[in-house]
């Protein structure tokens, strides 16, 4: 049988899903054990016990200086920044995308502008943001907004253009004005697409968040990783990275579930 026609059944699919993760963990912990037997003070590949201890120090035991639980505080501030950035970008991206994709008079000036703006490397304007907005929360949120809004807007613009012209004409024969046409036909059809676009830009959003926190911040997941890097604290960095990955994955999964739940018509409902 050709390879292209061979499919895993349920059981072997599960094994195939777990296998790469298991191999990765196995490779890591064998490496870690080998290095630690040679030199118990090795910091590069900490053992599971060392990592658990490090996590306990930040998640369960309050910080000696501030009395706060660092991991949860870092998580809260990072997620708050991320959520604000994503929310602002989603609203702006949706408005710009619809205006530019549906209204030719708005699309003419907006579309080329968006193309150029999306080519500006967001990290290159980070210094400008720090100069203009100061080192506070605003500049970090703005970096996320500047980084992902053009991507969202361009994607939604494209999706808006893909709405069949027949539907727009039909809506007009049903008595829609430009405004109600956008409200009742274009917007509802673009919302599920917005959620999908958000999933696609989640990775970039985290990248910009951590970059901003690494450079100027006093808390946050990115700040913590870059802070403990000075002490080669791999036992702390690795769990933090894993935690960030888990959070990002959960957000992705949540958005996916939301799309299914809120827009059952989108992925072709069955009778």
């Amino acid at each position, binding site marked *: 049988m050709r390879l292209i026609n061979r499919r895993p059944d349920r059981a072997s699919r599960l094994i195939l899903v777990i296998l790469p993760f298991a191999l990765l963990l196995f490779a890591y912990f064998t490496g870690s054990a080998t290095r630690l037997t040679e030199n118990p003070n090795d910091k590069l590949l900490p053992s599971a016990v060392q990592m658990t201890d490090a996590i306990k120090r930040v998640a369960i035991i309050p910080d000696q200086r501030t009395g706060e639980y660092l991991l949860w505080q870092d998580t809260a501030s990072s997620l708050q920044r991320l959520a604000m950035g994503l929310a602002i970008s989603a609203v702006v991206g949706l408005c710009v995308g619809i205006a530019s994709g549906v209204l030719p008079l708005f699309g003419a000036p907006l579309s080329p502008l968006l193309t150029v703006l999306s080519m500006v490397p967001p990290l290159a304007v980070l210094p400008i943001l720090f100069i203009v907005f100061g080192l506070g929360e605003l500049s970090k949120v703005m970096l996320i907004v500047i980084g992902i809004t053009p991507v969202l807007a361009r994607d939604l613009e494209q999706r808006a253009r893909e709405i069949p012209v027949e539907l727009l004409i*039909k809506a007009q024969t*049903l*008595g829609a004005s430009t405004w109600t046409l956008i409200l009742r036909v274009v917007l509802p059809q673009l919302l599920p697409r917005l959620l999908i676009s958000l999933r696609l830009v989640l990775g970039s959003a985290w990248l910009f968040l951590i970059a901003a926190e690494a450079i100027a911040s006093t808390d946050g997941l990115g700040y913590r990783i870059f802070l403990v890097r000075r002490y080669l604290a791999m036992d702390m960095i690795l769990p933090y990275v894993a935690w960030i990955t888990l959070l990002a994955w959960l957000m992705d999964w949540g958005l996916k579930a939301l799309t299914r739940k809120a827009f059952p018509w989108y992925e072709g409902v069955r009778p």
Partner: protein
Amino acid sequence: MSFISVNNVWQQYDDQVVLEGLNLSIAEGEFCTLVGASGCGKSTFLRLLLGQEVPSKGVILLDEQPIANEPDASRGVVFQRYSVFPHLSVLDNVALGLELPRSALLGRLFGKAKREAREQASALLHKVGLGHALDKYPTQLSGGMQQRLAIAQALIMKPRVLLLDEPFGALDPGIRKDMHVLLLELWRETKLTVFMVTHDLCEGFNLGTRLLVFDKVRLDPHAPGAYGARITYDIPLNSDRRAARAAIESLQTA
């Protein structure tokens, strides 16, 4: 007096002439079927009637007034595909036509007004045979059901003109027969003037009270775009149907 009159209409894209010198006068309540080879301007003519395009030359009058140069509620339309809104249930697809004109700000009704709109939509849907599928989404319907929905959606507006662009082109023959019956029934009940583009000559002859054949009478092999299509045949059909309708109308006015 003619309801729709087409006066010397030309349509031309760059140097490609699609339609040339169209002159027509259509009485209210006529069922016109438009046939002709592919690419000879039937659909272009329909788009002109719809207001989706503006003729390069000439004018189309509806009730002595030039027709609006954008689509509006006076002319309903059913396309071969993409005629219904995928994000609305069957019921809301039809109720939308009642909601949009009455609510300029939000495009939707609430409370009692919404209930009434839905009842009205539901009555029409029962009539076209979709009473069992009110809560389904269009993707859950078969092709024929989707076109029934599209027709109901257009009729809820009570348009004076209904434009059909190969509405049954993608349906299989059995379903197509059912749709013909439905369409004729709806046409008899309303004072609708219908224009229907079709590739199927039989359909054109069976349904219409007037068959319009589009064809190019002049052809320059060195410049295929130099001449456009005209209406080469204009055949009155099914005079019994036309007569019956005229009789009913005279009874109603008497």
